[in-house]
């Protein structure tokens, strides 16, 4: 059985009521799970003896601007056992957008989630240290949201006064 079939079978067996969508575009397997199930789902992927998705490679988000569920959080997990990278998505309905942190499962997700918070303003609940990571701490906006102007908001980032 190839890894894709194995993963699909295992996931369907345990989580089928919570999977909103499965896609397999150009060999990229992707599951969309209900956002409240993200932590059990991640835990399952990591701890299942046949899957062993030990590494979280990335957490990011998509801002769909006009959709009702405006934000989608995207995770990439890697299994060394299967040599396979899996994509997991979760659509967020809440306003302000929020989802449970997966940093309790994958430690590496901690900083990725800080980045996603910084750029999109998505709150990761129960995150140990949800601070901005790129933008200065006093900054009030989330630059990768669609309504944010490319050139920024004048005066929102302080510059030192001019030396003579």
């Amino acid at each position, binding site marked *: 059985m190839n890894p894709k079939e194995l993963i699909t079978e295992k996931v369907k067996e345990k989580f089928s009521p919570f999977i909103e969508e499965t896609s397999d575009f150009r060999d990229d397997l992707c599951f969309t799970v209900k956002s409240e199930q993200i932590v059990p789902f991640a835990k399952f992927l990591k701890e299942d003896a046949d899957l062993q998705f030990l590494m979280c490679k990335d957490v990011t988000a998509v801002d769909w601007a006009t959709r009702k569920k405006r934000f989608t959080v995207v995770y990439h997990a890697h299994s060394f056992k299967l040599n396979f990278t899996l994509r997991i998505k979760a659509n967020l309905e809440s306003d302000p957008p929020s989802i449970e942190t997966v940093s309790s499962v994958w430690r590496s997700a901690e900083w990725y989630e800080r980045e996603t918070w910084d750029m999109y303003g998505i709150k990761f609940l129960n995150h140990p240290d949800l601070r901005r990571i*790129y*933008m*200065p701490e006093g900054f009030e906006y989330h*630059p990768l949201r669609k309504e*944010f*102007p*490319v*050139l*920024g*908001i004048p005066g929102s*980032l*302080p*510059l*030192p*006064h*001019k*030396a*003579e």
Partner: protein
Amino acid sequence: MGLEAKLTQDGFITTTIDAVVAWARKSSVWPMPMGISCCAIEMIAAADPKYDIARFGSEVMRFTPRQCDLMIVAGTVTYKMAQVVRRIYDQMPDPKWVIAMGACTSTGGMYRSYSVVQGIDQFLPVDVYTAGCPPRPENLLNALMTIQEKIGKTRSRDFQNRSLKELELSQN
């Protein structure tokens, strides 16, 4: 002209203090290499044997601002980094000069974006701008020569002690 010839003939030369000081200053401009991104690679190339910035007396790249006369800002300056650049600039002793190396430092370059300062002249007094992304080492050497020319024209009274008030300001 041959300084040796002059000295062995008469044993002395007549000049002004200003001229000697300016000559000494411009022949030993010690750069502060503010290499923040890709432009820094060309700045390093300018120091290698092929381009040899030592010909101009500027091979002594100092990584402490307290020993520098010239800040070469080589790279994209973000708003977050601007505070750091300014802080280092403030620690350099007077008199001091600034080269804005490359498109990024001069104008923001291709980063027309919320995070990048659109020209470091918004918070630093820039003496020479260099075009290019990155500028070739020759271009940097040309900027250095322009600075040298500028220093050659200075007189001591151009650098009066700065008033206490200004110094306090720049420490914040």
